[in-house]
């Protein structure tokens, strides 16, 4: 029982990441009709916003400490962050430790800028082009983006710990009278954060005029255009929002697993599967599929399950995708006629 509860928590946590990435991806699919292979790269850029901020806060000057030696036997050069000069060592330490939450604020303008320039500069010209061309250009872009990141930050994962207040784990068991159910704080934060972002996006699309027009545009772009509404500008904004969602998902993900330059590619395939299983053109479908696949993946990695079906943990996502697509022609909640040709 405890094991199952823990795996549900794990599933929700994995699902949060899948859902957030898939949400942005399906927004771009649904509104712009673009197959965006660079979406994983947006997630990765978000994560590296956190890394960049951490680096910025750590900008330091060298102070030579004669009492210690470095590996060559020269006096050790100790890096002292400028922050420490300005605010004192303790305050600086605290600020640096809180760099990941601070990166949320830092990343939003960056992601919006990245999103807008990507859409205006490149994607816009591919609305009318075949999906194959979109795949080629966005895949090329994804490679270029990740190579740029690699050139600056290297290929190794970079540790970006959560603030000390969130590094421990929470004893769920004590709460409900069971033993051994503890769960890391930051993963719970991630889930809560995902919920807030998802709710925000839905509310935005549901309750604002802007969202209404975008939804109308998703359903029938031409008619909306004929009504004299500048749908293009709104689509740019939608792209920026999608980029932002992916980027924030990336920022918040960094304390869970150290970011590296190819993390976007690692998530790319799975997020496409999530979107399609959810059904093309359906935002709730993408979110639902994200959580369903996350939870199933967590269950499939339980020892009891692997003992029965060896290797199931390796293939569960794809197996579920096949079953869903064969039993429900348009995924869980897909609309007819979207990306079916």
């Amino acid at each position, binding site marked *: 029982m405890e094991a199952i509860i823990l795996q549900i928590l794990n599933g929700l946590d994995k699902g949060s990441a899948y859902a957030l990435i898939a949400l942005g991806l399906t927004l771009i699919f649904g509104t712009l009709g673009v197959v965006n292979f660079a979406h994983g790269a947006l997630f990765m850029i978000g994560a590296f916003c956190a890394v960049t901020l951490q680096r910025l806060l750590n900008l330091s000057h060298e102070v030579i400490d004669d009492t210690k030696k470095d590996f060559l036997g020269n006096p050790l050069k100790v890096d002292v962050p400028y922050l420490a000069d300005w605010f004192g060592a303790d305050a600086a330490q605290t600020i640096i430790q809180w760099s990941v939450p601070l990166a949320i604020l830092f990343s939003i303008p960056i992601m919006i800028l990245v999103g807008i320039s990507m859409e205006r500069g490149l994607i816009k010209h591919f609305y009318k082009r075949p999906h194959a061309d979109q795949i080629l250009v966005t895949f090329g872009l994804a490679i270029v983006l990740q190579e740029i990141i690699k050139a600056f930050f290297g290929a*190794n994962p970079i540790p970006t710990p959560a603030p000390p207040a969130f590094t421990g784990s929470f004893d769920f068991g004590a709460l409900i009278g069971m033993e051994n159910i503890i769960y890391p704080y930051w993963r719970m934060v991630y889930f809560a954060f995902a919920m807030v972002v998802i709710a925000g996006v839905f509310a935005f699309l549901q309750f604002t005029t802007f969202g209404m027009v975008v939804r109308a545009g998703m359903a029938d772009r031409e008619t909306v255009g004929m009504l004299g509404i500048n749908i293009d500008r709104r689509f740019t904004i939608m792209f920026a929002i999608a980029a932002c969602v992916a980027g924030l998902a990336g920022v918040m993900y960094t304390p869970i697993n150290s970011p590296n330059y190819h993390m976007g590619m690692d998530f790319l395939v799975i997020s496409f599967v999530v979107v399609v299983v959810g059904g093309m053109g359906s935002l709730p479908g993408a979110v639902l599929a994200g959580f369903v696949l996350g939870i199933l993946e967590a269950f499939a990695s339980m020892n009891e399950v692997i003992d029965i079906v060896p290797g199931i943990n390796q293939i569960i996502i794809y197996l579920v995708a096949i079953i869903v697509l064969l039993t429900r022609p348009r995924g869980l909640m897909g609309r007819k006629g979207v990306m079916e040709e």
Partner: protein
Amino acid sequence: MSKSDLTRRGVLRAGAAGLATPTIFSGAVWAASHSGFTNAPEGGSVTLGFNVPQTGPYADEGADELRAYELAVEHLNGGGDGGMIPTFSSKTLDGTGILGKKVEYVTGDTQTKSDAARASAKSMIEKDGAIMITGGSSSGVAVAVQGLCQEAGVIFMAGLTHSNDTTGKDRKANGFRHFFNGYMSGAALAPVLANAYGTDRKAYHLTADYTWGWTQQESIQASTEALGWSTVQNVLTPLAATDFSSYIAPVLQTDADVLVLNHYGGNMVNSLTNAVQFGLKDKIVNGKQFEIVVPLYSRLMARGAGANVKGIFGSTNWHWSLPDEGSQAFTRSFGTKYGFPPSQAAHTCYTQTLLYADAVNRAGSFNPCAVAEALEGFEFDGLGNGPTLYRAEDHQCFKDVLVVKGKENPTSEFDLLEIVEITPVSQVTYPPDHPMFGGAEASLGSCNPGA
């Protein structure tokens, strides 16, 4: 015009190609034959092929290997401060290249994929006339390239490869490994673990689901069980996994009090980070402190895991803080050139290059069979690992193994590990027909000079 089973550009460039294969394997005979093997060097230079991962998750490790190779070439050609050449027990290297020929090199990208690695190695052999291939950062690639070199008739000096198979069931006459292996990690770690954590421990293994992971896990399990530990469970995790939470969480439900992470690279960084997130480091089970063990450590990975490595035991092939003369010389030489200390991958690659060059000098020929003969059973010292033997039966180096621990108070981003114990070579030696190494069936085959 001539016909051959393999391209021998060097030979052909010079015109005639001798096809005589010597039948008596003695130094004098080798010395007399400078042709009759793949890519026999002609003219004043010899080309080595450095095949390292330049893209993909191990790109940084590959970059460090490449730095070491460039340094080794510089030293062989008489540049720089000579690095470990002065400390090396064999004195044939004098800064005039190899056998008086200037050392040149070509580089390639393995992408950490067997196919790409073989393609790259082939292009070095077919296009650039490389006489020796070296490098790599994973066992799958090492085994694949070693097989290719055996077929093509050039020497393969393995880089970082830790699987028992490389010199076990997949050993090849043309392939040599300086790096240690899973068995040695187990044999060196187990006594230290038993000493630190007691002999009554229950271990839970998470193992990367591919050949390296399996051989490593098998080795650790065998050595720890021999000292009284029990193994609660071994769970195989997909190589592609990025989040290990669903494999870590079940550990909480068992009575295991040690977690062994048979992971490497990004897998290790993530599984260790996740394990610490779940509070395993602070957990008390059966009245004992819960412990995590990472059998194969690398400094680059330790850096990726950040503060999570503190206090965690593992093993490593070499560490720059070793006090011996050779290690110091190498660290100084590398650090002066690049500004930071070398990794164990860099060390093994540098050493392999020197060992190859020295073997050629001693054999008096570049012929792979002569070189192999010179390396087989070769005993040397002064290359950072103490007295070392290149065993003839399986082409594995036998030397002391370092047991290390994540440092509590690192002074820099390179100073992450501290040496806990240097396990003597006698403790990690095994017979060549050990069942974990392919048993009696495993054989090197016969050396192939190509041509």
